[in-house]
């Protein structure tokens, strides 16, 4: 069976070309064939998915409908689904079974989705390559010697390798957009507060957002219609009206002004990326949009501000892993303090420890003002950069990453270089704006290149609209890796 997009699967299920169970079986067959190489998944939820597919078939037979009825979807393994493991790719949560559904999972179930498994990630979403997983390293389906990106690298690789129709990821500093770019798929980080974080294991609470990772912008719009909207269970979820994102796809894009942030080009940008992104901007102009240069002058401070603030929040959030209420507990301890320290030493991987230590330091007595407060003030300046730029344009366009997917192991020994590779994605999280990645071409080595679209707060509609029109004009999103 050809592996369809979400929208194609919906039509074909309704036309009874195949059943939801047959579609699910085809997806698991594909996983059985390719996932030994790609390693996108940590757990498969075959029994649950099979029951959901059978229910979907009964509803389809009864003429019922729902936005994702019978469609196989994967979840990044930091999103809780009742009765299944949620490991965050960490030893410390290796045996944790979720006692409840995240709000996004509840909404996917109500929309009829078939939830097929949990995808690999960097431990606690800390990383840009998926090499920080406790379990195994996910490979880039386009070249198995390269990383799929991170931290939602499992979701990115699963979509690219046709191991699901679509997936959810989470984005704290680029963790949806960068793996989407590296794997040649479409990924959207919504506005902070657009999607409920209830049931998402917390990394940095003022940055984290769940979002769709799909084959097309149209599929991303369908998923956003299902997962978006206010949730009383998340006090930071925004009580603003949820538009129909699929209806926005047919809006006219001709009058739109696209801002090109000059700081996103030039020194340090790989030549293939620069050429491909500039070509994509020409394509957008040929579609009637007007490109103008804008400036985000504090871009060079984004990585520094982000690693202060995100690590500070992480050090507080991860203090809950103490071996008492759930998760791993060290077997070697005679007293409470040793139990805490041994549990955390044995349970966390090195990158998580590095960030907890950095976060603890910037919050510690005597350093709070110099680091944490300074980082918060830099965040204000970066946010103001975007407010100024959006006075002149409707959205901004630029690269996602300074270079295409790097080789496995290439940056593992140099955490600062790994952090600096997030330079173009981090600002959107600091400012809380929506941003997305769509495929716009390939490098000389046939690795995908992503185009970043950045929007105004709560204006995912314009991003999805432009992305959908771009995908009508180009065929980059239709390229698939050979496995």
């Amino acid at each position: 069976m050809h592996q369809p997009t979400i929208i194609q699967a919906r039509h074909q299920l309704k036309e009874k070309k195949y059943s939801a169970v047959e579609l699910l079986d085809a997806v698991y067959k594909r996983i059985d064939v390719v996932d030994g190489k790609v390693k996108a998944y940590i757990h498969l939820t075959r029994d649950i998915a099979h029951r959901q597919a059978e229910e979907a078939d009964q509803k389809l037979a009864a003429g019922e409908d729902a936005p994702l009825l019978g469609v196989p979807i994967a979840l990044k393994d930091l999103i809780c689904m009742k009765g299944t493991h949620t490991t965050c790719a960490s030893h410390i949560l290796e045996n944790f079974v979720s006692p409840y559904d995240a709000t996004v999972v509840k909404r996917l179930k109500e929309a009829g989705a078939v939830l097929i498994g949990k995808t690999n990630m960097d431990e606690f979403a800390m990383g840009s390559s998926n090499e920080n997983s406790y379990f195994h390293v996910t490979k880039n389906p386009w070249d198995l010697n390269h990383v799929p990106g991170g931290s939602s690298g499992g979701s990115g690789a699963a979509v690219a390798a046709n191991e699901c129709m679509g997936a959810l990821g989470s984005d704290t500093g680029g963790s949806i957009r960068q793996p989407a770019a590296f794997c040649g798929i479409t990924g959207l980080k919504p506005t902070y507060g657009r999607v409920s974080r209830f049931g998402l294991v917390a990394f940095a609470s003022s940055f984290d957002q769940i979002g769709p990772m799909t084959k097309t912008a149209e599929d991303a719009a369908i998923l956003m219609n299902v997962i978006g909207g206010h949730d009383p269970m998340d006090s930071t979820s925004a009580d603003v009206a949820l538009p129909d994102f699929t209806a926005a796809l047919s809006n006219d894009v001709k009058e739109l002004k696209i801002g090109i942030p000059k700081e996103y080009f030039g020194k340090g940008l790989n030549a293939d990326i620069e050429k491909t992104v500039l070509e994509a901007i020409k394509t957008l102009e040929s579609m009637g949009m007007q490109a103008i240069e804008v400036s985000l002058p504090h871009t060079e401070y984004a990585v520094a501000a982000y690693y202060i603030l995100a690590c500070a929040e992480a050090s507080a959030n991860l203090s809950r892993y103490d071996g008492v209420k759930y998760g791993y507990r060290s077997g070697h301890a005679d007293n409470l303090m040793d139990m805490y320290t041994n549990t955390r030493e044995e349970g966390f991987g090195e990158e998580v420890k590095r960030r907890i230590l950095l976060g603890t330091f910037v919050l510690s007595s005597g350093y709070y003002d110099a680091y944490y407060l300074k980082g918060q003030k830099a965040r204000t300046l970066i946010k103001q950069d975007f407010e100024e730029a959006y006075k002149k344009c409707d959205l901004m366009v630029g690269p996602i990453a300074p270079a295409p997917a790097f080789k496995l192991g290439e940056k593992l020994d140099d955490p600062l270089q790994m952090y600096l590779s997030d330079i173009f994605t981090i600002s959107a999280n600091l400012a809380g704006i929506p941003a997305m990645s769509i495929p716009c071409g390939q490098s000389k080595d046939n690795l995908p290149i992503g185009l970043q679209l950045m929007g105004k707060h709560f204006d995912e509609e314009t991003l999805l609209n432009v992305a959908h029109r771009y995908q009508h004009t180009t065929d980059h999103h239709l390229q698939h890796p050979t496995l």
Partner: protein
Amino acid sequence: MSSDSFDIEKIALLARLKLTDEEKTRLGRQFAGILEHIDRLNQLDTENVEPTSLVLPLQNVFREDVVKQTFEDGKYLPLAPRQDKEHYEVPQIL
């Protein structure tokens, strides 16, 4: 601020992490580079800049003071690595 001020033993204790000697050496070296990069924020004049802790204009979020059952009873204690039927068990504190 200076990266020389990073006392890894003290920070590890605050973070409740027990590091091996090898980790202390390696992480300490990496922190020097990371903090050197972070120190570039000193170039910014933030004298009259307000800090941002959350990008949304949220004030206190209240709900009605009504008792509801959020989670099912009896589902949480069994998740603990050590527990009897009513309590979490931890090593001796005093």
